[in-house]
C-alpha cells in the first residue's frame, strides 16, 4: 500500500476529530470543564497532529500543535476557560478544517488568520511564573512509587511496528524530553530484518534514554500521554548499579554521556535487559477502542441504495407481468422474493441513517456567534439528538436550519433590556427538538422571542403582490407568507439575515427533501417552526396517478384518501371549487389545469393530500395505485421546475414525475387560479 492509500481514512478521521473537538468546545462553553472532556478534545487534536505529520502537512501540524499546547495548559489547570480561549479554539477548528479540506487537492491553501491565532494561543499559554504550579505537579499521581527517586530510571521507548502508519512522530517527544531533561545517553536498538528485506514504513526500533534528573512516572505520563505508536516505560536501576555502565545498557553498549561521538547506536537481534526493571506500561498507540464499527465510503452506500431501488422497480415489473397468470409456485417464490427484498431495502436504508446529534450540536456555535454580534444573551437547548435521518437529508438540512436559527436569534429574540421590560428573563432561549413522528421525523425549532408581526407580513405581501387581499387568510396562511420569495419583514437588514432571500429557499430545500415546514407564532411569546421530514428520500413510497397521458407520483405519506369518480362531488364555496366529502369542503386543485396538461373529458378522480398549506384535493384523470421506487433527480432541462422534485421509472417502463405538493399548493394560492387552501 502506498501512503496515498491511507489518505481517505486520515481525512475521514480528521473530520471525526474536528467534530469531537467542536463538541468538546461547546461543552466547555456550558461549564463542562471536567478532565474527561478536556482529555477527549486533546486526544482529537493530537490525533490530527499525528496524522498530519505522517502526511507532511506542516501547517496542519503547526496549528494542531499550538492548539494542543493550549489544551495541555488547560488540562493542567494552568489556564482557565475564557471567552477568548473558546473563540481561539473555534477559530483553530475552522483553520484546521480548511487545511484538512485542502489536503489531496492541488490547490495551495493558506489561511490568513493563522498567524493571529498562533499569537493569541501563545499569549493565552503565558502563565504566571509561579514555580509552585508546575505542569507535573498537577498531573496524574505516580501512585507513590518510591523507586522513582531512590534509583535511576532509564526511559525505554518501544516503537510499534505499525507506528509509522499510525501517525507516530517521535521528534516532538524527543524535543520535549530534551527541553525538560539533560540526555546523558541515548541508545537506539534495531531489531528489524536485513536491509534487503526491510519494509521501510514498518518500525523495528527501541530507544533507551538515560536522563538527568531521572524521569518519574508522572513525567512519563505527562510526556507520553496520547502518543501514537509508542509504548514507553521506565526501567529502574538500583543505585548500586548506576555507576556500572555495562549493567544498564542493552547489549554491550556504553551509556557514557561524556563523549557523544562515542555513543554507538545499538544493533542487536534482541534486547537483553540486565537492569532490574520496574515496568509500568503506558498508553499504547491504540487509543481507539476496538469495536464492531467499520467505516464505509458513503458513495458505496448510495450505490447500494440505488441498486436496491432498481430491484424494487424490477420487482414491480415482474408483479405486473404475473398479473392474471395462474402459476401458484411462481407466485409463492415471488412472494418470498418480495419479502427478502423488503428486508434488504430496510437494511440498506438503515445503513444511511445517522443521528442528528452532531449536526444539531454545531448550532450552539452559531447561536453563540449571533448572540455576541447582536449583544444578546441566548441559550440553545437541543433535545432528541439521537433521532436518526438519512445522511443525505441531514447534510441538506444544515443550510435551512442555520438560516432558521440565525433568524430566530437575530430577529426573534429581543435584547436583554427589551426582554426585561416585557417581564421576560433577560436570556432568550432557542430550542431544537427532534423526534420520530409517524413514519418520519419532526424537527421543531422554537424561540421565546417577540413572535411574527402579522400586520407587517400582510402589508409586505400586499406590496409585493404576493396576495391580492388578506381576506379569508387564516393566521397560519399569513405566517406561511414569510416563505414567499423576497418577502422579509425584518425592520433592519443585517449581515446575518433579514434580506428576504432565505426563507423561500428554506422552504424549497425542505420541500425538495420531501418535507413540510409549518409555522406558528404568538406575539410577544415567540415563533415555532415544525419541519416534518421522511426518514429517507432515497426510495420513494408513492402513489401513482395519471393526468392526460402523463404519470405523476405523489408521496404516499402525504396521501389521506382516494376519491373515485362516483364519490367526486364538486361544489362552489365563495366562487372557489371544492370537493364535498362527508360534510367537509376541501379545496380542489385541478392538476391538469395547473400543469397545462390536457385532461380527459370525464368526471375526475381525486387524491386528498396534506400540504403545508393544509388539506387539498387533487383532481386528476386516473388513480393508478401505490408504487415503491428510486427517485432520480430531474435533468438540466427540468431542473428549475419547482412543481416537480424528481423522476421515477414505473413498472410499465414509463417515466413519472414526482409532484412537489407544496409548490403546487403555493402556485394555486398565489396565482389565484384556485382559492386559498387552508386546514
Amino acid at each position: 500500500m502506498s501512503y496515498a492509500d491511507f489518505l481517505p481514512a486520515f481525512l475521514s478521521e480528521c473530520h471525526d476529530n474536528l467534530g469531537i473537538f467542536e463538541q468538546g468546545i461547546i461543552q466547555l462553553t456550558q461549564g463542562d470543564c471536567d478532565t474527561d472532556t478536556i482529555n477527549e478534545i486533546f486526544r482529537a487534536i493530537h490525533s490530527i497532529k499525528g496524522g498530519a505529520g505522517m502526511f507532511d502537512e506542516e501547517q496542519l501540524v503547526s496549528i494542531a500543535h499550538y492548539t494542543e499546547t493550549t489544551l495541555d495548559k488547560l488540562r493542567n489547570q494552568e489556564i482557565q476557560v475564557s471567552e477568548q480561549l473558546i473563540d481561539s479554539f473555534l477559530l483553530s477548528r475552522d483553520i484546521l478544517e480548511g487545511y484538512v479540506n485542502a489536503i489531496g487537492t492541488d490547490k495551495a491553501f493558506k489561511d490568513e488568520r493563522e498567524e493571529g491565532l498562533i499569537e493569541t494561543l501563545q499569549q493565552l499559554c503565558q502563565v504566571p511564573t509561579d514555580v509552585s504550579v508546575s505542569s507535573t505537579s498537577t498531573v496524574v499521581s505516580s501512585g507513590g512509587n518510591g523507586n522513582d527517586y531512590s534509583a535511576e530510571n532509564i526511559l525505554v521507548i518501544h516503537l510499534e511496528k505499525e507506528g509509522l502508519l499510525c501517525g507516530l512522530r517521535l521528534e516532538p517527544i524527543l524535543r520535549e524530553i530534551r527541553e525538560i531533561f539533560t540526555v546523558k545517553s541515548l541508545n537506539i536498538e534495531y531489531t528489524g530484518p536485513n536491509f534487503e528485506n526491510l519494509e521501510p514504513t514498518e518500525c523495528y526500533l527501541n530507544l533507551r534514554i538515560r536522563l538527568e534528573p531521572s524521569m518519574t512516572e508522572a513525567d512519563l505520563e505527562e510526556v507520553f500521554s496520547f502518543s501514537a505508536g509508542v509504548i514507553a516505560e521506565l526501567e529502574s536501576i538500583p543505585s548500586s548499579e548506576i555507576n556500572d555502565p555495562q549493567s544498564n545498557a542493552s547489549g554491550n553498549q556504553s551509556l557514557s554521556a561524556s563523549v557523544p561521538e562515542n555513543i554507538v547506536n545499538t544493533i542487536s537481534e534482541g534486547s537483553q535487559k540486565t537492569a532490574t526493571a520496574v515496568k509500568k506500561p503506558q498508553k499504547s498507540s491504540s487509543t481507539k477502542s476496538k469495536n464492531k464499527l467499520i467505516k464505509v465510503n458513503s458513495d458505496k452506500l448510495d450505490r447500494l441504495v440505488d441498486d436496491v431501488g432498481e430491484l424494487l422497480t424490477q420487482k414491480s415489473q415482474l408483479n405486473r407481468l404475473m398479473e392474471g397468470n395462474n402459476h401458484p409456485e411462481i407466485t409463492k417464490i415471488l412472494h418470498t422474493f418480495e419479502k427478502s427484498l423488503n428486508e434488504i431495502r430496510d437494511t440498506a436504508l438503515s445503513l444511511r441513517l445517522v443521528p442528528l446529534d452532531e449536526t444539531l450540536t454545531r448550532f450552539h456555535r452559531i447561536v453563540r456567534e449571533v448572540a455576541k454580534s447582536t449583544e444578546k444573551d441566548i441559550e440553545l437547548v437541543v433535545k432528541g439528538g439521537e433521532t436518526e435521518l438519512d445522511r443525505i437529508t441531514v447534510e441538506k438540512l444544515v443550510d435551512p436550519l442555520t438560516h432558521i436559527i440565525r433568524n430566530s436569534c437575530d430577529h426573534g429574540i429581543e435584547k436583554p433590556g427589551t426582554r426585561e421590560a416585557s417581564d421576560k428573563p433577560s436570556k432568550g432561549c432557542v430550542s431544537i427538538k427532534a423526534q420520530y413522528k409517524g413514519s418520519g421525523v419532526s424537527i421543531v425549532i422554537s424561540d421565546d422571542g417577540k413572535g411574527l408581526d402579522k400586520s407587517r407580513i400582510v402589508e409586505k405581501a400586499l406590496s409585493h403582490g404576493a396576495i391580492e387581499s388578506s381576506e379569508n387568510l387564516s393566521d397560519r396562511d399569513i405566517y406561511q407568507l414569510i416563505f414567499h420569495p423576497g418577502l422579509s419583514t425584518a425592520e433592519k437588514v443585517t449581515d446575518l439575515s433579514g434580506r428576504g432571500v432565505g426563507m423561500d429557499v428554506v422552504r424549497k430545500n425542505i420541500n425538495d427533501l420531501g418535507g413540510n415546514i409549518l409555522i406558528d407564532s404568538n406575539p410577544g411569546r415567540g415563533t415555532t417552526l415544525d419541519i416534518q421530514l421522511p426518514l429517507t428520500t432515497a426510495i420513494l413510497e408513492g402513489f401513482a396517478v395519471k393526468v392526460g397521458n402523463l404519470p405523476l407520483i405523489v408521496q404516499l405519506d402525504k396521501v389521506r384518501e382516494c376519491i373515485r369518480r362516483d364519490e367526486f362531488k364538486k361544489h362552489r364555496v365563495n366562487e372557489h371549487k371544492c370537493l364535498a366529502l362527508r360534510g367537509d369542503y376541501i379545496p380542489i386543485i385541478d392538476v391538469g389545469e395547473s400543469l397545462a396538461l390536457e385532461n380527459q373529458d370525464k368526471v375526475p378522480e381525486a387524491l386528498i393530500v396534506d400540504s403545508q398549506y393544509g388539506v387539498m384535493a387533487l383532481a386528476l384523470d386516473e388513480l393508478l395505485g401505490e408504487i415503491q421506487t428510486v427517485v432520480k433527480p430531474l435533468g438540466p432541462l427540468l431542473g428549475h421546475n419547482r412543481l416537480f422534485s424528481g423522476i421515477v421509472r414505473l413498472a410499465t417502463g414509463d417515466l413519472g414525475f414526482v409532484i412537489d405538493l407544496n409548490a403546487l399548493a403555493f402556485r394555486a394560492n398565489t396565482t389565484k387560479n384556485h382559492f386559498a387552501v387552508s386546514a
Partner: protein
Amino acid sequence: MKLPEKCTVVQISQIYQQLRDIIKESPQAITFDASETFSLDISFIQLLMALEHEGIKVSIKSPTDSFQEALLLYDYQSLIVSEEVALEASS
C-alpha cells in the same frame, strides 16, 4: 546519494528503493549529501541503522542546520563528515 528535501515516512519507500539500487553497485560505504534536506524522522534513522546492520559504512556530508538539529535529537551527529572526508570515502 543526494537526499531529497524531506527524509520522512512519506518519502522513505522511495529513498529505500534508491538505496537498494546503490548498494547493489557499491555495497561497502555510502555518503549522503544532505545539502538540501530540511527534515528527517525516525523512519530515516531506521534506514541508517539497517544499513549499519549490514556493515555498510554510512556518512553524511553538507547537512543543513535543520537536518543537523534532527540528527542531534537521535545523537546521530557522528555520521556527519567534512567534504574532504566524504570525497575520500567516495574514492
